[in-house]
């Protein structure tokens, strides 16, 4: 079905999301609870309903956006050292202790293998086992790693330099690219990441540069390098530039024996090129010329704008403000394309701080996020086959990792994701997870309901909501839950009642409209 269709949903040209910024305002327009008549029952609920309130924690927005989901551990850490120090700690990710999660990931053998090892270990690879292990490892790290911002940036760059693991060859190349090119450079300098991507066999194969040779070029990579990876479609290049880039990068290919990058001098076009303010030097270090050009591209002002626009779209709003783009681009250029100071500036920017509730969680952000909220963890697994039903959920949500076929990566805006099929997938996921439907996930609601029997239902609901979402229920939210449970907020219920009630309570809290946003 459309999993394999080149959707090319795009966010660059115009803001496609309708009226997302007015969500909260729209809610306030017609607040049924204030309009009153709650006693008349369901009919009054036909207008706006805002189930979850504001925690009052000024750092909640930061914690939501810089992680895959707020947990008590994160709240405690931020409270202990402060928001600024916590961001710095997250950016200094190599000093975070990832021993436990990496040990768990190491049970998936494909993750550590080279392309040649993968081909030997998984011959006739048509089952998707390697891509499946990579998807599991990625989700595992997103769920359980303390290096949350790092994992978010890994995903950001995986989208930016999208290579789907769908082809029989790409399945052997994508996992090594993730390990060798994306992850080591996810929180470093963009120019290093760009060169690593350009020389990664997965990218060389996916966008055909491996098959481009002097006098017989293939433009595919050159075009997307400019349009999607660096200066952007309005970045100031033309068709002549695309041909020039393709010529400059001829001979950048793959050693078929090892599956590693190989420069083929005999296939390289050595002619002079002048592209976007860069002139080819006269020396004969031909491979280095391509590297120099990529580094020039990385420091181009259009690239600074483009990368910062995408960072803002991921972490702040679907419709980036040009003033904020300019602020971040200046930081990017002043720091030699280092992403860390850019993120520091982003998370302290006034526009960011005013953006609460405006960003729809992407499907996999939601999937991983509700797992973090409910306190789930992966069981130890050694093959992708074990994840079946969880992969099914990702498919229904439309975002099975590493399966987006087009080079622009999974969409980043609500307009592409906010639809009936996607929302239904989220509702099913919230309930299925709560009811421990997924064999590979360990879910236990006990801590959420512990120690609060024999209290009024309203208090029980408030405590469960606080433990789960770290935000309070509103009167409206409390009302809907009580209505569904057939109880009054002041009814006193014991722990046996709460045991059974906790399932719909947790499922509905996770499924609320509010919990789709950060």
């Amino acid at each position, binding site marked *: *079905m*459309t*999993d*394999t*269709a*080149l*959707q*090319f*949903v*795009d966010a660059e*040209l*115009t*803001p*496609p999301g*309708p*009226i997302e910024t007015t969500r909260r305002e729209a*809610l306030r327009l*017609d607040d049924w609870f204030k309009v009153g008549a709650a006693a008349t029952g*369901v*009919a009054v609920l*036909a*207008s*706006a*309903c805002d189930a979850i309130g504001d925690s009052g924690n000024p750092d909640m927005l930061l914690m939501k956006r810089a992680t895959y989901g707020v947990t008590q551990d994160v709240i405690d850490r931020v409270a202990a050292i402060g928001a600024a120090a916590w961001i710095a700690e997250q950016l200094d990710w190599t000093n975070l202790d990832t021993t436990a999660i990496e040990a768990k990931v190491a049970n998936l053998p494909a993750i550590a293998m080279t392309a040649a090892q993968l081909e030997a270990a998984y011959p006739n690879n048509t089952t998707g086992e390697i891509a499946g292990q990579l998807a599991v490892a990625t989700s595992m790290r997103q769920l359980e790693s303390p290096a949350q911002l790092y994992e978010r940036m890994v995903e950001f760059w995986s989208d930016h330099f999208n290579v789907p693991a769908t082809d029989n060859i790409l399945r052997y190349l994508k996992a090594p690219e993730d390990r060798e090119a994306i992850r080591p450079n996810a929180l470093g300098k963009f120019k290093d990441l760009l060169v690593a991507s350009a020389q990664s066999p997965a990218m060389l194969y996916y966008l*055909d540069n491996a*098959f481009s040779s002097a006098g017989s*070029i*293939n*433009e595919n990579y050159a*075009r997307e390098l400019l*349009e999607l990876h660096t200066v952007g*479609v309005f970045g100031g290049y033309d*068709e002549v530039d695309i041909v020039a880039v393709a010529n400059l990068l001829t001979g950048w290919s793959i050693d078929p024996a090892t599956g590693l990058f190989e420069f083929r001098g005999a296939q390289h076009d050595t002619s002079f090129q002048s592209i976007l303010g860069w002139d080819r030097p006269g020396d004969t270090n031909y491979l280095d010329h391509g590297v120099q050009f990529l580094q020039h591209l990385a420091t181009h002002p259009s690239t600074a704008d483009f990368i910062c626009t995408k960072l803002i779209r991921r972490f702040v709003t679907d419709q980036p403000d040009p003033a904020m783009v300019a602020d971040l681009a200046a930081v990017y250029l002043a720091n030699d394309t280092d992403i860390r100071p850019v993120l520091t500036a982003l998370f302290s920017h006034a526009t960011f701080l005013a953006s609460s509730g405006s960003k729809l969680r992407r499907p996999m952000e939601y999937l991983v996020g509700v797992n973090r909220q409910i306190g789930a963890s992966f069981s130890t697994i050694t093959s992708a086959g074990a994840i079946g*039903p969880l992969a099914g959920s990702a498919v*229904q949500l*439309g975002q099975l990792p590493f399966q987006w*076929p*087009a080079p622009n990566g999974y969409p980043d805006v*609500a*307009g*592409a994701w*906010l*639809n009936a*099929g*996607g*929302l*239904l997938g989220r*509702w*099913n996921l919230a*309930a*299925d997870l709560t*009811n421990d439907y997924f064999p590979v996930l360990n879910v236990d609601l006990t801590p959420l309901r512990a120690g609060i029997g024999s209290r009024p239902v309203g208090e029980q609901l408030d405590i469960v909501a606080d433990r789960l979402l770290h935000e309070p229920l509103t009167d409206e939210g409390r009302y*809907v839950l009580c*209505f*569904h449970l057939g109880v009054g907020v002041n009814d006193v219920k014991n722990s046996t009642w709460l045991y059974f009630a906790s399932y*719909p309570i947790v*499922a*509905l809290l996770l499924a609320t*409209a509010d919990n*789709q946003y950060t």
Partner: protein
Amino acid sequence: MTTQTDTTSPSRRQVLRGLAVSTGAGAALGAGAGPASTIIPGLATPASAAAPPGRVVVVFLRGGIDGLSAVVPYTEPAYYTARPGISIPAGSVTDLDGQFGLHPAMAPLHGLYTQGRLAVINSVGNPAMSRSHFEAQAYWEQGAAGNSPMGFGWIARHLLSSTGIPDAQFRAIGLGANTVRSLVGYQEALVMASVDQFSLGANDWLASTLQTPLTMLYSGQAPVEATGTTTVQALDDLAALISGGGGPPVYNNSTQAFNDARTLLGAGLGTEIITINVGGWDTHDNMGDETAGEMYDLLDGLATNLTMFQAGLDADGHSDVTTILMSEFGRRVHENGSGGCDHGFGNVVVAMGAGIAGNQVLGSWPGLTSLVNGDLDVTTDFRDVLAEIVADRLGNTDFASVFPGHTVTPVGLTL
């Protein structure tokens, strides 16, 4: 449908329409027919309340289909000179008009052509002539240049400037996990990956008990809540359609969307337009030849699905459905260094079914000896093609709303 949504549905729809345009998006809408709406400043009241004469399925071929392989200019020596490795031999094509012929894998569609139910238009494209997938697709799907108001899609603008089938549950359905740009701006579109997946609690019983509280939690006017309301409505409306397996045969991974479209067109939902995506057309390498390879497989799958789809509609008696196929651009006339073609300009559009002036090859053919930057020129603006469909099959002649800034020129595609 649940009672609480029933009682508020009409006003919800009015309010949503008001919300969608009140942010400025409607400014360019409705320059044409009808007095100004009192609810929505700037949006014309639809000129006619008559039901549309037909229904339309829009198939977008993502990635840029190589029209020169699909509909081969087999009499042109320049075609064979430009493509020594991947051209389709004249002897293998199914002739259409003495000048163009169908790729062998497209031969199953020839019957519809000779019955007068299928037509092709050559050298269609957009005037921006972008070779970017994303820019070109945005242009096609918005029906306007990149900076059109809020990026509304042309289908959305059609829906907002017309009334549709009376008492329609879902005027527009998008088949796919992502909302396509042509539907952006029409918040009530039903977008989903497949009919069979559209159920609450298929995996686990807990979800199936939550429809009522979810309806309550999602009642409201914010986009997410409106989507929730649509979701709940669709759960009720589609429940009877879920087959649980069986159904028509599945040929490839695009077949299910066509089968779903057939099911939905027969479901009495008042649906006048359905969008489908078929991917895989970005053939930069190893396209193959007239007997095998990537291009053969792609065209074989497409032609088979289209043939089965039309046969299914015929069997169901849906004689009012028109299917139109489009892609963001054609491909370079000359093959590249990898047995494929890079991005180009002009391309073929195929239309079949109700109201199509079939059995002809339309469009002014610019020839392959006077190329534009190596590409086939564009001689027909894609909006002229879509405008005829909108006018003659969907009954909406408010072109100023649907294709703002464009003056429509007749193409002769519809009867």
